[in-house]
């Protein structure tokens, strides 16, 4: 059951990701990315990360990507026009990528000590309570710093995107 669910949503994620790369229109890419994120949220649930799954939905899919879509619609940017690429750039990309992924897989297999697999529901620390406790005790300082970072980001965004009054 675990494996089936994993395979289903992994397949969704990979397909959406490939679509993200292949689509020439940003909004298609954006939607594919949302698909990836949804699939990942489910995978997080499988891994026992309930809070993270919800956060993934709310923060990433619900806020960040909405911003992306919003900007794409605002700029109304069209699809990339095709350009004549040099041959090796056109044909070397996929093999290189495959090599890269294969290498990573190999490295993972080499480096990973053998261990019992992952069962749904056997990880109990992913709930909001435990994470919140850690977040506000052990990770309090990073948390506050991140909040300040967010504030700075907001101000920076406003400053950058405001239209000069003149």
């Amino acid at each position, binding site marked *: 059951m675990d494996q089936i669910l994993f395979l289903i949503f992994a397949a969704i994620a990979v397909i959406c990701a490939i679509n993200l790369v292949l689509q020439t229109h940003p909004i298609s890419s954006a939607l594919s990315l949302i698909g990836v994120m949804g699939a990942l949220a489910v*995978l*997080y649930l499988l891994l026992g990360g309930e809070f993270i799954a919800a956060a993934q939905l709310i923060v990433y899919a619900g806020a960040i990507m909405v911003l992306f879509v919003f*900007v794409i619609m*605002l*700029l109304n940017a069209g699809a990339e026009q095709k350009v004549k690429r040099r041959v090796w750039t056109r044909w070397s990309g996929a093999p290189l990528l495959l090599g890269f992924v294969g290498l*990573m*897989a190999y490295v993972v297999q080499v480096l990973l000590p053998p261990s019992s697999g992952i069962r749904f529901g056997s990880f109990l620390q992913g709930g909001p309570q435990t994470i919140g406790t850690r977040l506000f005790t052990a990770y309090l300082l990073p948390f506050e710093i*991140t909040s300040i970072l967010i504030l700075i*980001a907001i101000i920076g965004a406003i400053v950058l995107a405001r239209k000069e009054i003149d």
Partner: protein
Amino acid sequence: MPPLPFTGPTPLSWYLILSAILFGLGVAGFLFRRNLITVFMSIELMLNAVNLSFIAFSYKLNQNDGHIFSFFVMVVAAAEAAVGLAIILTVFKNRQTLEIDEVSSLKN
């Protein structure tokens, strides 16, 4: 009677390899797409891939630090998105293009 296929737990390496694949695709998108926004989204994809391996490892190690890290990653990604999109808006305002290769004033 042999056990049914795909029953039993998922190996950790599957998650990691999936994360690797997504990361690689993100890299590919970063390299092959020429639209600023798409490039930016590829970066987000890479971040997600990393988050996945965070969560997987934290399952493996049976502690939720990985979740907290990926939470921070999300927050930072949000900040990054805000600023980055603002920058993209400004670039578009100034150059009327999102072609990443036409934004090459850094050359020489």
